[in-house]
């Protein structure tokens, strides 16, 4: 079973040279820390920055420089700043290659629900709807199950939908799954030490296991 950090590290391996990437709040934000140095990739913050750098030193925090999670950040060499309309023109216009988002539920045909809800109130939709409707390759990073043990990989989402048929791959603490064109979670890799039975047990939607399923390389 992977920790949040390990999920982030595993996703980082999927990143290709030359990509422009939007990282959602939560586990996706952690991915930034594990992108291999030899890759030239650019992280977008939808509040108006291309080229997110590491968190700043304490003395360098700048209230005018935050990411979409309202956290203080830094810029890298070659960054550019712009307004919110331009930020989403980039997303909607198909210029962002990949989006990595958290989710509350994913359905076996690739629908996603990731709206936060409390007291019956949807707390917000943010920029996720724009990202899932864009042409960006969409990866989901999340725990396989809710805290009560129920599966987040469902036949159909129960919560309000963020997007339909848009998820490409799902990275959980138990494994990696792609969405089959005809529907179904296709298991690609298992997390170290996780059995097929455990994955079967914790996946409520249609699970497809074909041939030998490799175990992920372990993380130090």
């Amino acid at each position, binding site marked *: 079973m992977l920790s949040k950090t390990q999920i982030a590290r595993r996703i980082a391996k999927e990143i290709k040279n030359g990509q422009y990437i939007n990282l959602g709040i939560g586990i996706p934000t952690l991915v930034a820390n594990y992108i291999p140095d030899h890759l030239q990739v650019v992280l977008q913050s939808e*509040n108006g920055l291309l080229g997110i750098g590491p968190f700043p030193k304490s003395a360098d925090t700048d209230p005018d420089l*935050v990411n979409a999670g309202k956290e*203080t950040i830094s810029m890298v060499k070659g960054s550019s700043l712009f307004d919110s309309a331009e930020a989403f023109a980039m997303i909607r216009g198909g210029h962002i290659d990949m989006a990595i988002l958290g989710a509350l539920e994913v359905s076996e045909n690739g629908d996603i629900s990731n709206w936060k809800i409390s007291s019956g109130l949807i707390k*917000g*939709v943010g920029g996720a709807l724009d990202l899932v409707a864009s042409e960006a390759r969409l990866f989901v990073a999340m725990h396989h199950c809710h805290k009560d043990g129920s599966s987040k990989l469902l036949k159909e989402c129960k919560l309000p939908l963020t997007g339909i048929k848009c998820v490409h791959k799902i990275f959980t603490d138990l494994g990696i799954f792609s969405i089959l064109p005809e529907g179904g979670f296709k298991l690609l890799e298992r997390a170290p030490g996780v059995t097929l039975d455990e994955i079967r047990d914790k996946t409520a939607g249609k699970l497809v296991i074909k041939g030998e399923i490799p175990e992920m390389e372990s993380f130090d």
Partner: protein
Amino acid sequence: MINKVVADAPEAIHDITDGAVLLLGGFGLCGIPEAAIQALIFRDLKQLTCISNNAGVDDFGIGLLLKKRMIRKLIASYVGENAEFEKQFVAGDLELELIPQGTLAERIRAGGAGIPAFFTPTGIGSDVAKGKEIREFDGRLFLLERWIKADFALIKAWKGDTAGNLIYRGTARNFNPLMAAAGKITIAEVEELVPAGELDPNHIHTPGIYVQRIFQGEAYEKRIENVTVSA
């Protein structure tokens, strides 16, 4: 050049009335019109409609207007950081319209640019699409969204000149330039106000034509919502 300078925030906002529709710049607490909000809470206004990406936090930003119960309706993309908001909403005292962030930005941009409606892929398949016209272009589905305009836009920039030209700094730009163009009366506050001609015309983010009033604010707190640092 036309001189747009007013003395201070109270003068700038003096004619905002009950029931007015306001655009408020900023993302979270970054780039918000602190001085205009402070001036607003000293006025006994009611039934405001506030359009802003977020609702601030309980004791800063739009949260201050919420606490004074000046807001009847909030149009935003995310309100998760504000407990006061949730309380009033659950009690039924407050109306909320949630709009995807990119659609919110584009609708405001459309308002300023004279585009009454446009098609966007955002929201297809979700509740956002309910009741909206859906049409296929080039094999994909899109839904029709309308422009957003407001009686007043309250925005914040880094530097400005007497002609209303504005330059923002860092990610404090966010919604401010779009809102500048979509307000019937746009009120800009800046950290530094300079005479017309001192800003490089090539560096200006918001041309002065969009700004009706400008003033230099004082003692900006610029509170950070989440301080995150690396070792």
